[in-house]
């Protein structure tokens, strides 16, 4: 009988194995930066591309959640192939800084950003600012029923009308801010109310679309999710409601980046960070996500309320920190 099949199979197998072993080590000479991108995929790709065009330095992107990538850098330690990490929220960066896995950002770069939005010790810096809002569908929630504070949406009158995303870092930050402002007890009550009367969604995009499609009256999200949908559809039924007077529901958080200590190309990595806050870099980010730029020379999306008109609570990302107390509270309540 014939032995052909095995022969072919064996050769293919050998070829695959040898090929794959080599594949991981193929790139060498000209500097290629490795970006661990925990920010929205398209945003990371846009900045990397703009940087490549400007400097000729190639950027390889590894996609994943910010928490997942930070955890990966922790396990990798000195062997980390990452040069830069870019995350949607500050906590993964704060954690990496605490564990001594980040290199200091160049002073010249840090100096360009409002000190409220950089790490006190200079290990990471904010790239864009993100404001929490309530997106609502006027067909289901009339303007006069809009609450003054995010505290007020956890009552029975909001039964089935309010959506939130307990698994998101943004919601965790909101909870942490509320603990700082209103105390643990009030926050616990609020969470219990939300759990009882609100609907949980897997992520902000699904919650936002549910509001737009009239499946739920309102959602606690970040403003750029609304802007992104607006850009896609051209016109939206849903509107934004901004919480003012320092309400936790109007929290401003940062999306940030840092140079990994183990980076083999620290010079180019620093160059990348500097580019991210330059006008070109900021425009590249904003082209994919309507967040507020940290660079004052770049204009935010006119669809959004101008940044200086917001009245967020006076809490910096550093003060919110890892939000471990908020996660614990959410767990006690049964939301996580």
């Amino acid at each position: 009988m014939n032995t052909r099949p095995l022969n072919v199979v064996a050769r293919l197998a050998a070829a695959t194995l040898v090929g794959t072993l080599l594949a991981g080590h193929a790139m060498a000479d000209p500097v290629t930066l490795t970006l661990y991108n925990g920010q929205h995929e398209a945003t990371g790709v846009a900045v990397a591309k703009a940087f490549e065009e400007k400097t000729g330095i190639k950027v390889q992107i590894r996609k994943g959640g910010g928490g997942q990538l930070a955890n990966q850098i922790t396990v990798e330690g000195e062997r980390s192939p990452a040069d830069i990490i870019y995350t949607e929220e500050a906590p993964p960066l704060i954690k990496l800084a605490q564990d001594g896995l980040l290199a200091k950002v160049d002073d010249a770069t840090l100096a360009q950003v409002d000190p409220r939005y950089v790490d006190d010790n200079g290990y990471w810096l904010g790239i864009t600012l993100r404001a929490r809002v309530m997106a609502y569908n006027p067909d289901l929630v009339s303007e006069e029923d809009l609450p003054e504070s995010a505290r007020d949406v956890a009552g029975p009158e909001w039964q089935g009308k309010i959506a939130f995303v307990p698994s998101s870092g943004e919601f965790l930050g909101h909870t942490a801010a509320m603990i700082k402002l209103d105390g643990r007890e009030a926050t616990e009550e609020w969470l219990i109310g939300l759990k009882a009367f609100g609907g949980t969604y897997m992520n902000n995009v699904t919650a936002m679309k549910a509001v737009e499609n009239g499946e739920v009256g309102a959602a606690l999200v970040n403003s750029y999710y609304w802007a992104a949908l607006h850009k896609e559809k051209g016109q939206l039924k849903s509107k934004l409601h901004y919480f003012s007077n320092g309400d936790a529901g109007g929290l401003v958080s940062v999306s940030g980046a840092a140079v990994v200590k183990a980076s083999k190309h620290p010079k180019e990595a620093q160059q990348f960070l500097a580019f991210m806050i330059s006008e070109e870099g900021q425009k590249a980010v904003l082209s994919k996500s309507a967040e507020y730029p940290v660079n004052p020379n770049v204009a935010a999306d006119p669809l959004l309320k101008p940044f200086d008109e917001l009245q967020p609570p006076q809490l910096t990302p550093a003060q919110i920190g890892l939000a471990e107390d908020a996660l614990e509270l959410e767990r006690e309540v049964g939301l996580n």
Partner: protein
Amino acid sequence: MLNQASVLAEAPVSGRARVARRPPIWLQLPVLLVGIVAALPLLFVIVRTWESGWQSAWRLLWRPFVGGLLVNTLMLLVLVTALCAVIGLALAWCMERSDLRGRRYWNVLLCLPFAIPAFVSSFTWISIGPEFEGLGGAVMIMTLSKYPVVYLPVAAALRSLDASLEESARMLGYDRRTAFWRVTFPLLKPTLLGTSLLVALHMLIEFAALSILRFQTFTTAIYQQFELEFSSTQAAMLSAVLLAMCLVLLWMEIRLRGRGFARIGQGVARKPASVSLGRWQWVVQAMLLALVTVGCVIPLVMLGYWVAEGTSASFPLARIGETLGASLYLSLGGALLSCALALPVGFVVVRYKGRFAQAAERLPYLLQAVPGLVVALSLVFVALSYVPALYQTTLLLLVAYALLFMPMAQAPIRTALEKASPQLEEAARTLGCKPLTAFLKVTLPIVFPAIAAGFVLVFLDTLKELTATLVLGPTGLDTLATAFWSHTTVLEYAAAAPYAALIVLVSGLPVYLMTARKVRRRLD
């Protein structure tokens, strides 16, 4: 353990003559490799849980959220498994024992769900409206995508049964229904239970489809908690619960299965007379039509709609081609590696019956209850600690695929090896063949169809793999599944559609070849 060949008789006596001999070193190596590598994720789960200490484990596991996860996971598991078992058995009976018209066509149509991954059909249903979210939608979609796992083997078992048994029972006074439940059903039970177990185990670790359907189980929660927290302890702990559930399921399956039955003696099994459906013919036809429409036609039509929608926007052909190439390359590699490991392991277990080999063979089955993310995290940890050169290489990803999907190749290969009598090989030896030549010329051709089947099954699963690929793959790698996922999570249906359509097309070909061959064989 999950061996669907339990209806068959034990290997012939001459196979036992070899028990005392040790397998040659080149056969022991792959067994050793599988044993060690497959133990890693399990050790990872146990050690991580252990490290965090009892108090913290208790605090993290004994909270209302975990209770909710347990309820959700169990409800999904019980409902989907029960429905798949009922549908699978009913379909098998209709196809094998009744005068159902158009069986040729139905057979191909009923296998279509193999080519439509659950996350693709979830995506198409959810793009219609939010009504399909939650338990109801999850049960519907998972059942529609998993029933062939029960139907195909049960139909095969029913086909191979000797009708004379049932006929004897009829002659002794049972009516047709009693004869079926008292005589035929017990013979089908091992296959039915084994395949239902596969469905149940899969419900423990399904991630993508359930995330899209907004239905939270242990596995979807593992991903979220991992993202919120900066350690893998919580993920490991929740996986420990999944492992415990897996052990309970395995134990239940063994208890329920009872002893296997074997048809003794040679000769051809009698073909059963087919039962006339009579007036039920049209009812059954309508039900089958409904099943195929809801299970395949609607998802495929919706997918087509989104692909058309997508082409009107931008269609990044270069990128799509690149991901298609990566997917094919990785899936073929994963399937090759799995078969390359399953063959020697199966061979050693069947021919030499070593204790270690038997344990090594079973480990990958236990991994069926460990989510891809956790398997990947354990490999990240091990690679970085001991073989950093492997980290973020394709090879490590292929190892992960082999760990995750090897049982798909193991089960058919082992069954085939049990049927390939060593006497044939010995005869070849006496005629002057060297051992390897004898194996290649005699045994391999006998097991080759099983290897091919295993290869296809692993290939199909690898094509759909998502989370291990994201965590372990080389930086910058995109497969059809990961590209689909990136777009779906932000609800870009049109952009996600081409990737989903390619997954369906690429899986459709082997599925069609498999079922078409089966049809042909039956018509001969």
